[in-house]
C-alpha cells in the first residue's frame, strides 16, 4: 500500500477508535471489544474502498455496507461520523434517550446506515438481497458485510451462504471478524464454528484470510476479492478483540461493557499517544 495512504488510514483508524471509546463511555454500556477489532477494516472500506456520498447518503449507485454484527455499532457510527455523515461530536450521544444513535444500527434515522441490524445472522441475508438486486437490474454497486465469528453459529448465515453461492453473487463481499471470542468465551469452546474457511469453501465461496490490523494485508485481501467472478467472496480476518486499548485486548469481559472513568482515561491516554506517534512520524 502507498505509504502516505497507509499513514492516513492509520491515523483515521485511531480517531475511529477514540470515537468508539467516547461513545461507549458516554453510553455507560455497549460493545467496545468487537468494535475495536473491526475499526481498521471499516476505516479502509469507508476511506479507501467504498463509493459513498456523505452529502447525499442515499444515492442509488452507492456501495452498500451491512454491519451484520450489529452490536458493534459504535465502530460503524464512529467511521460514519469521521467520514462526514454526521458530526463527530454526536458520538457522545450513543444510546442516549434523545439520540438517533441507537444501540444497534437503525437505517431509518441514521445517515449512512444501509440496513438495520442487531439480531445476529440477519444482516448477511439482507446483504444477499441487495447484491441480488444489483444483479437483477444490472446495477454496478457492490455490497459489503461484516459478520462476527460467533455470529456464524446462527443457521441463517448458512442459508445465506448457500443462497449467495447459488446466485453467483460476486458483487457481495463478506468479512468474518475472527477475534475468537464471543460472550460466553472462546468460540472454539462455546460451539465451535471452525474450520471457518473450509465451511465457506464447501458452501461455494472464494475464501481469503487477512490480518485485520495491517493495512497492507487488508488492501491485498480486498484487491484479491475484486478479481473473483461468479462466486461470492469472504475474507476471514484474524483480529484482536479490543485492539488498541491494552487492557481490553483479547479479553472477553470487554465484549459488552463500558469503561469506568479511570479506565476511560487510560484508554484515551493510550489512543491519544498512538495518534500523536502516528501524526509525528
Amino acid at each position, binding site marked *: 500500500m502507498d505509504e502516505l495512504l497507509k499513514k492516513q488510514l492509520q491515523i483515521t483508524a485511531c480517531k475511529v477508535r477514540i470515537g468508539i471509546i467516547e461513545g461507549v463511555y458516554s453510553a455507560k454500556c455497549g460493545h467496545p471489544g468487537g468494535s475495536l477489532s473491526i475499526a481498521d477494516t471499516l476505516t479502509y472500506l469507508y476511506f479507501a474502498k467504498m463509493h459513498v456520498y456523505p452529502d447525499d447518503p442515499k444515492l442509488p449507485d452507492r456501495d452498500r455496507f451491512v454491519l451484520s454484527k450489529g452490536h458493534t455499532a459504535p465502530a460503524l457510527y464512529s467511521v460514519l461520523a469521521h467520514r462526514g455523515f454526521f458530526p463527530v461530536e454526536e458520538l457522545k450521544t450513543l444510546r442516549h434517550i434523545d439520540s438517533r444513535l441507537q444501540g444497534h444500527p437503525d437505517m431509518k434515522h441514521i445517515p449512512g446506515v444501509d440496513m438495520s441490524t442487531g439480531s445476529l445472522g440477519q444482516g448477511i441475508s439482507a446483504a*444477499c*438481497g441487495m447484491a441480488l438486486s444489483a444483479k437483477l437490474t444490472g446495477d454496478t454497486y457492490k455490497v459489503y458485510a461484516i459478520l462476527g465469528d460467533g455470529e456464524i453459529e446462527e443457521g441463517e448465515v448458512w442459508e445465506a451462504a448457500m443462497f449467495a453461492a447459488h446466485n453467483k453473487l460476486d458483487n457481495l463481499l463478506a468479512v468474518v471478524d475472527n477475534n475468537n471470542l464471543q460472550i460466553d468465551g472462546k468460540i472454539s469452546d462455546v460451539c465451535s464454528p471452525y474450520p471457518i474457511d473450509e465451511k465457506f469453501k464447501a458452501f461455494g465461496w472464494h475464501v481469503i484470510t487477512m490480518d485485520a490490523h495491517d493495512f497492507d494485508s487488508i488492501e491485498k485481501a480486498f484487491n484479491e476479492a475484486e478479481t473473483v467472478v461468479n462466486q461470492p467472496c469472504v475474507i476471514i480476518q484474524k483480529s484482536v478483540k479490543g485492539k488498541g486499548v491494552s487492557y481490553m485486548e483479547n479479553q472477553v469481559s470487554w465484549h459488552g461493557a463500558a469503561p469506568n472513568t479511570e479506565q476511560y482515561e487510560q484508554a484515551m491516554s493510550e489512543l491519544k499517544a498512538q495518534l500523536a506517534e502516528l501524526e509525528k512520524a
Partner: protein
Amino acid sequence: MADLVKKATRESYGEALAELGDKYENLYVLDADLAGATKTGIFKKKFPDRHIDCGIAEANMMGVAAGLAATGKIPFASSFAMFAAGRAFEIVRNSIGYPHLNVKIGATHAGISVGEDGASHQCNEDIALMRTIPGMTVINPSDDVEAKAAVEAAILHDGPVYIRFGRLAVPVIHDKETYKFEIGKGEVLADGSDVTIIATGLMVYEAVKAAEQLKNDGISARVINIHTIKPLDKELVVKAAKETGLIVTAEEHSVIGGLGSAVCDAVCGEAPVKVVKIGVQDVFGHSGPAADLLKEFGLCSENIVATVKKAVADK
C-alpha cells in the same frame, strides 16, 4: 348463493402476480421451494427472471426480500403461513418491520383448511403474530376478487404488508366489476340491528349465509367483512357496537390475537359491548378433509347461527 363459483385465494394470488407483472416492472417474487403450492409458479412461468426460488430457507428469504426492498424493488416473499409468519417471525420483525421496508409477504395455506397435512401446517397464529409488529398491514381476503384486489393494493402501499391466502377453494362472493377494495376499510354486506357478525377470510361467506338463516328465524344480523385486520376499520366496528349492542366475530384463526381480539381492542374503550369469538379455541388442529375440519372446529354458518342465537337470547 348455492351456485357461486369457487376458487382458492392462493390461486388468486398467483394469478394476480402474473397479471400485475407487466404493469409493475419493479415487482419480484420470492418463494421457498413451494412455488407450485403457493401458486407463484404462475408468475414464474411468465416472468422467470423476476422469480427467485430461495430454497427451503424462509429466514434467509425474508432477509433477501428486505435487501431487495432496501434497494428499491417490490418483493413478494411467499411461503405457507406457518413458515412465513411463524418460522421467519423474527426476521420479519427485525429486518422488515423495524426498518419499515417495502416487503409484501404472501402467506398461503393459512388456517385449519390446510386439511390433511395436519396441525404442523395449519397456522392459526399468523394474524396474531403479524399484527403485533408496528407498521405491519395485515390483510385476510375473503375470496378471489378481494384477494386479487389486495395484491394490487399491497403493491401501491408503501410499507410492509402481510396477506393471508387459503388452500381451499371458497365461493367468490364479490363482483370484480364493481368491488372497490381499500386497505383498512371494512365492508358491510348485510344490514341488521340485533347483532353484528364481523368476519374475515373464508368465514365471510359463512357469515352471510348465517345472516340469511337468522333473518328467517327473526334475528336481524349485520354482517361486516373485515379484510384488513390491521389497521382495523375502528370506526365501522365501533359504530356497529353502538348500534347493535352485540358482536360475534368469526375467523379461521385462533381466538387469541386475531380478528376477535382486534375487535375487542377496538370496542373496549369506546363502545364496550359483549363480543363472542368464533375461531379455533386455543387448540391444535389435526388431519382430515378441510370441509370436515371446518365443521368440527365450528368454522361454519351453522355454528355462527347457533352462537348468535344464544348470544342474542342472553342479551
